[in-house]
């Protein structure tokens, strides 16, 4: 039997991998070395000019990156805490358990862009119902979308509302798969619910928690639709994130070469930072 034939069976998968992953990355790298824009529509070669521009003359990208870090870390921490709390509630034997499980998942099932339009309407400072309601209680209108600080928290509220159910779903699945024996042992020892959570539930959930946090961090770091619809990155650049900035450079200003530089640099940063975060979380949360 000629074992070389087995490699033939790898080709379909390999072709798909090259087509959807390797080629786009190589093309992006090549594009990043070109000056393709609206007035020079060609794949010329300009060396590392775009990279020099990014590292020496584009503070807006780095500002948007640090803003993105703040937004994604904050939203994921909040999603984890709230998602875990909700999962613990419906994990227990409570009335209408199935009903609550479905209710908690609804935000995730809705279309993000449409829901963000609805949130934008809610938070409209002069015409929206939120300020109207607060006005009835004697509270002055809050600048939900036009104050640079508050606007960031408005984005966080919408993101947390939309994606906490995803965290809830993963953590609930984790809770349901936990072995019963450690809990029985803790009950025999007379452990309080708090101690049971700290010494049994949380450590057992650590691997799933890390997975859930990393998945959400990857997703949150691509935040684009919420910002695009809710604030367009404003006021000023107060809510502009890396992906939105790359979109502006690429598809609004048509600086294709430079946008490719931003995209590739962003990809490298994300791979490195998420690898480090995963390692740190593993060290902190999983005790041998």
């Amino acid at each position, binding site marked *: 039997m000629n074992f070389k034939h087995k490699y033939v069976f790898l080709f379909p998968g390999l072709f798909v991998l090259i087509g959807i992953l390797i080629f786009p990355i190589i093309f992006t790298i090549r594009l990043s070395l070109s000056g393709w824009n609206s007035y020079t529509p060609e794949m010329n070669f300009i060396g590392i000019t775009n990279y020099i521009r990014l590292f020496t003359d584009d503070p807006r990208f780095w500002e948007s990156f640090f803003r993105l870090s703040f937004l994604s870390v904050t939203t994921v921490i909040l999603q984890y805490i709230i998602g875990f709390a909700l999962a613990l509630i419906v994990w227990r034997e409570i009335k209408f358990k199935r009903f609550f499980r479905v209710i908690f998942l609804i935000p995730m099932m809705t279309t993000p862009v449409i829901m963000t339009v609805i949130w934008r309407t809610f938070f409209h400072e*002069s015409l929206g119902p939120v*300020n109207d309601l607060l006005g009835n209680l004697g509270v002055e209108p809050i600048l939900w979308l*036009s104050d640079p600080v508050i606007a960031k928290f408005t984005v966080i509220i919408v993101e947390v509302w939309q994606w906490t159910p995803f965290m809830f779903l993963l953590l609930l699945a984790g809770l349901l798969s936990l072995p019963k024996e450690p809990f029985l042992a803790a009950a025999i020892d007379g452990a309080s619910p708090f101690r049971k959570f700290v010494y049994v539930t949380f450590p057992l959930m650590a691997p799933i928690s890390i997975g859930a946090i990393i998945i959400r961090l990857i997703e949150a770091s691509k935040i684009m639709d919420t910002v695009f619809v809710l604030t367009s990155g*404003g*006021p000023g650049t107060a809510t502009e994130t890396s992906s939105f900035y790359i979109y*502006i450079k690429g*598809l*609004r200003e048509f600086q294709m070469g430079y946008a490719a530089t931003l995209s590739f640099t962003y990809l490298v940063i994300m791979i490195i930072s998420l690898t480090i975060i995963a390692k740190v979380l593993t060290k902190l949360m999983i005790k041998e």
Partner: protein
Amino acid sequence: MKTIKTYVVALISALLVLSPVAYADKWSDQFPHIKATGDIPGECSYDAMSKKNYKGKTLKINTHAVPVMGEPTALHAEQFAKLTGAKVDVTHTPAGDLYAKAMVPFQAGQAPYDIVFGFSNFINDWKRYLEPVPKKYVEMKQMQDVTPSHIGIASWDGVMYQFPVDGDRHYLKYRKDVIDNPEYQKKYKADTGKELRVPQTWKEYGEMAAYFNGWDWDGDGEKEYGSAEVMKKDDLMYAAFYSRSAAYSKNPKTPGGFFFDLKTMKPLINNPGFVEALTDWVAATKYVPPGGINFGLGDEIGSFGGGQTLFSFSWDDAFVAAMQPDSPINNKVGAAQLPGAMKVWNRSTNSWDEGFNQAPFFVWGWAVGVAKKSKEKEMAFDYLCFFANEANHQADIGIGRFGVNPFRNDDFKADVWTQIGWDKDIAQSYVDTLAQMEDSKNRVFPLRVPGTFEFNAALATAAAKALAGQLSPQAALDEAAKQWEDILNRVGKDNVRAAYSVGVAMEDNKL
């Protein structure tokens, strides 16, 4: 007696046959959109189009989202299909993506759309991919009525690339029931010592807007505010900033550029004139409705058109929306030229020239062209000609949400507007405002150079930072000017100069 009766009947019949306006005909029965005028004879009228046969052919159009420009595009596509037998596919695209959606296939040498809608300031980037408008359309009667300004906007170096379907300029809209109200005039005088009148300068605009901000001055039980403006970054706000800057920076004594000094190509956007305008604009954040700093064009139209503010300035849409019969402020609004300034920056003497200065801004507007690689060019131009025929045009300009605004000499007649229910004096002030802008010798035209998007985006980002309090007006505009220098270096000064000189020639009344 019988003879007199016969003459009267004959006269009425003759008038009906010869009159170009307001009677039902077989076309308006089929197409109620033109019920006010019926079909109006012309090269691209309903009657003329019904004689064309495009059966079995497909026309593909990329246009804006509904309703602004998207709705009339789809409506006229449906009519065109019925008349000619063609199949018309209309794709709707958000404003921010119109440029890229056409540009990507253009650069790849493809033509997924026969007709592409965009903005008139795309012309420099798009013109190499667009088919020039054929001579027979340029010379036809309906085109002869287009104002010279709008012919200029649709053309490059004398070649027309964009088919005129819309005319745009920024002007002031105000609440006539407040400004002309004797009680408020008395109260304003008593409280401020100044006259309440249509603001002549941006300073007056700011004072009045601040005075009428945050209280119920129209007795509807809701608070009203001073001004609604397009302040949202990336949502056309740079156009609003240019409108506010023109009076301070467009000095008729210093021809040769408003955005750049054409000789040196030094950006002028951080000179004291622009800084003064941005300082005024930062102050305006105090008299816009809550959240007004995030208003895009749609919000501005809704806010002023809904009766929420005293002033507004931008395209015609908010004014026309306010004048529609279902508007709460129908026939309560007035139009005037953009406010001026009592000083204007002179870049030759590096000092302010004292005295009143006003400069209308012929902001970019909707534009449309036919792809050079299209295989259905004749049908595409026929569609555009039909879109803009006299009957369609007259019906379209009276519907605020359509975004079709006056660009023909006939539009500047008050009768056109009184026929759709406007008060005579409002119609007159509206057409006078538009006509004065056409006649002005100190006009500003939009920036139409390679990399227009980059220049405008850099300016918008800087201005947005100032409005949000992230930077001072001077620091923000210095940042924008530095970015403009970088863009110039990337695009090439000579490339930009060559393109910019066309706009400067229009501003300096040489074209």
